[in-house]
C-alpha cells in the first residue's frame, strides 16, 4: 500500500496587483485587481515506503507549495492527499508528529539556544521517551559529526553546521517520512557531501521515505532513484534519472579561461554559448565528443589558463524539458 497518495491536487492563489506609480497606488485604493495563479494544477503521484524521490523544477514551479501541503501547513484548493492514513491539513498535530521537515532556507531550531538544548526541547515537544531519545540523538550526533558544536547557540553556527543540526532535529522523533526542501542550498562542497551521505544512510538503513526538492543536479544524481519534474504546477516527468536524461538531450558545458582577452574559440563539436572577457563558455554533447577529447583539443590549439566542465543548470534542463513538452 502506498504511504503517500496525492490525487488531482490543486492550489490557486489570488494575488493583488496594482499599476505602478502614484496613479496606480491611488487607483488601488478603490479597485483591487486580482490575478489568479495556479501554483498546483492537478498533481498526482503515490510514494511507496522507503522511496527516495527527487522533486525538481524551476523557481515558482510549485515545489515548495507541494511540500507545504504535504507537511500540513498549507490547505489546497482541491484534491486529495493521504499520508499514513491521514489528511495532513485536517489532522495537523498528529500528522506532523509522524514526519520530519527541513527547509534549507530557514532553521527550525531555536536561534538563541545551544544545539543540545534545542534537541532536549524537541524531545519534550514530540514527547519522545528518554531512552529512545538518547539513543537516536547520540546516533545522529555521531553520523552528522555534531559533537564539537553541541554547546554553541544556533545563531553562531555556519550554514553547513546549521543544516546538519536541522537534519538531526528533523529526525529526533524517528519519523517515517522526511521532507527536505533544498537542504543543500548554499552549502560548500564538503557539507553537501556530508548531507548527501546522511540522507542516503537514513533512507537505505532506516527505510525513511524521503522527498527532496533541490536545484542541484548532483544531489539528484547522487541520491534519487526516482525523479519527479514539476513545471507550472504540473508533473512533467516522473521516472528514473535515465528516463529524464532520455527526455532531454545530454549536454555539458566547458568553461575556458584564456590567457588573453578578445580571443575566440572555434571547434566543430562545440558551440560558444557565452563570451565574457577572457572567459568562453562552450556547449557540447558528450555522446558526440567526450570531455577529455574536447579539452585536449582546445588546450592544444589555444592558450588556456584554466578550464572546467559543468552540467547545465537544472533550470535549463527543466526549461528545455518544458519547451519540449509543449
Amino acid at each position: 500500500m502506498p504511504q503517500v497518495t496525492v490525487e488531482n491536487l490543486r492550489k490557486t492563489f489570488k494575488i493583488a496587483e496594482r499599476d505602478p506609480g502614484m496613479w496606480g497606488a491611488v487607483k488601488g485604493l478603490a479597485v483591487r485587481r486580482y490575478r489568479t495563479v495556479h501554483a498546483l494544477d492537478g498533481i498526482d503521484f503515490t510514494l511507496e515506503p522507503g522511496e527516495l524521490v527527487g522533486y525538481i523544477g524551476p523557481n515558482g514551479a510549485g515545489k515548495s507549495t507541494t511540500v507545504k501541503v504535504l507537511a500540513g501547513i498549507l490547505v489546497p484548493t482541491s484534491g486529495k492527499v493521504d499520508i499514513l492514513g491521514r489528511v495532513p491539513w485536517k489532522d495537523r498535530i498528529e500528522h506532523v508528529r509522524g514526519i520530519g521537515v527541513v527547509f534549507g532556507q530557514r532553521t527550525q531550531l531555536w536561534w538563541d539556544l545551544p544545539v543540545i538544548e534545542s534537541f532536549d526541547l524537541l524531545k519534550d515537544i514530540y514527547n519522545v521517551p528518554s531512552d529512545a531519545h538518547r539513543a537516536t540523538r547520540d546516533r545522529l550526533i555521531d553520523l552528522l559529526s555534531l559533537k564539537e558544536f553541541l554547546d554553541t547557540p544556533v545563531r553562531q553556527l555556519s550554514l553547513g553546521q546549521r543544516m546538519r543540526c536541522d537534519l538531526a532535529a528533523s529526525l529526533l522523533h524517528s519519523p517515517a517520512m522526511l521532507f527536505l526542501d533544498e537542504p543543500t542550498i548554499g552549502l560548500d562542497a564538503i557539507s553537501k557531501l556530508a548531507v548527501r551521505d546522511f540522507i542516503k544512510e537514513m533512507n537505505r538503513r532506516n527505510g525513511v521515505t524521503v522527498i527532496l526538492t533541490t536545484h542541484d543536479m548532483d544531489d539528484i544524481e547522487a541520491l534519487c532513484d526516482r525523479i519527479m519534474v514539476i513545471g507550472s504546477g504540473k508533473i512533467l516527468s516522473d521516472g528514473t534519472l535515465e528516463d529524464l536524461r532520455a527526455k532531454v538531450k545530454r549536454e555539458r558545458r566547458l568553461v575556458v579561461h584564456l590567457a588573453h582577452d578578445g580571443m575566440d574559440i572555434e571547434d566543430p563539436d562545440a558551440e560558444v554559448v557565452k563570451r565574457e572577457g577572457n572567459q568562453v563558455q562552450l556547449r557540447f554533447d558528450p555522446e558526440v565528443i567526450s570531455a577529455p577529447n574536447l579539452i585536449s583539443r582546445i588546450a592544444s590549439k589555444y592558450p588556456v589558463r584554466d578550464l572546467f566542465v559543468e552540467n547545465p543548470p537544472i533550470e535549463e534542463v527543466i526549461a528545455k524539458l518544458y519547451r519540449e513538452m509543449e
Partner: protein
Amino acid sequence: MKAYLAILSSRFRMLLQYRAAAVAGTITQIFWGWIRVMIFEAFYRSSDVVQPMSFEDVVTYVWLGQALLAMIPWNTDPEIRSMVRTRTVAYELLKPVDLYNLWYSRTIATRTAPTMLRSVPIFILGLAYFGMESPESTASAVAFGLAVIGAVMLSVALSTLLNISLMWTLSGQGITRITAAAVILFSGLTIPIPLFPDWAQTILRLLPFAGIADTPFRLYVGHIPPHEVIWVLAHQLIWTIILVVWGRLLLNRGLRVMVVQGG
C-alpha cells in the same frame, strides 16, 4: 502539557541571561519610582483633604509598580513580529503543538523572567531605603501572592492577543502604543486607581487592566482586605478567559487566511 512547560522553561532560562538589560531596567525603574514618589509627596503635602489612600500606602503602591513593571503587557514579542513580517509563521505549525498554547507559554516566560530579575533588587532597596512597607499582614501577603499569579495569567493573555494582532497589522507599532498607553493609565501604574474620580473608578474596576496591577497592589497594602481576594481572582479569571477565547478565535482566523493563501 510537557511540551508547553518545556517551551516555557527554556525561554525562561534564556531570558534570565539578559543581565545587562536587567541592571539597566532596575536602575531606570528605581529612578522613575523615586520621581513618582516625590510627585505624590508634593501632591499630598499641598492638600488638606483626606485622600482615599494614605501616603504610605501610595509609596508602597508606587514601588510595587516599579518592581513589577516588566510584567505589564506593554509590548509585542520581537520573534513573533519578525515571523509575521517575513511570512514564516506557518512554519510554527510544523511542530505537533497547539499554536495558541505555544505562544501563551512562551509569553509567560517573557513576562516573568525579566520581572524576577528586576523585582528582587527593587523590593530589597525599596523596603530598605525608599519608604516601601512590607505587606499589611501575612494574610495580605498570601492574597497578594495569589493575585500576582492571576495578574500574570491575565497579562499574558493580553500580551498573546497583542502578538496575534500582529498577523493583521504587521508592524504592530500602532496597536502596541495604544495598548501600552491604556494599560499604564488604566491599571493604576500612573496614578493609583483609588485616586481617580468615582465615576472613572467604576469603569476602571470593570475593565481588565485593574487586575494587572491595581488590585494585587491594594491587597498588598491592605487597601483591599485579604478575604476579598476571591473577587480579585474572579475578576482576573473572567477577563483571562475572555482574552484567551478572543485570542484563539483571532489566531484561528489568521491561520486560516494564512494556510489558505500561503505564507
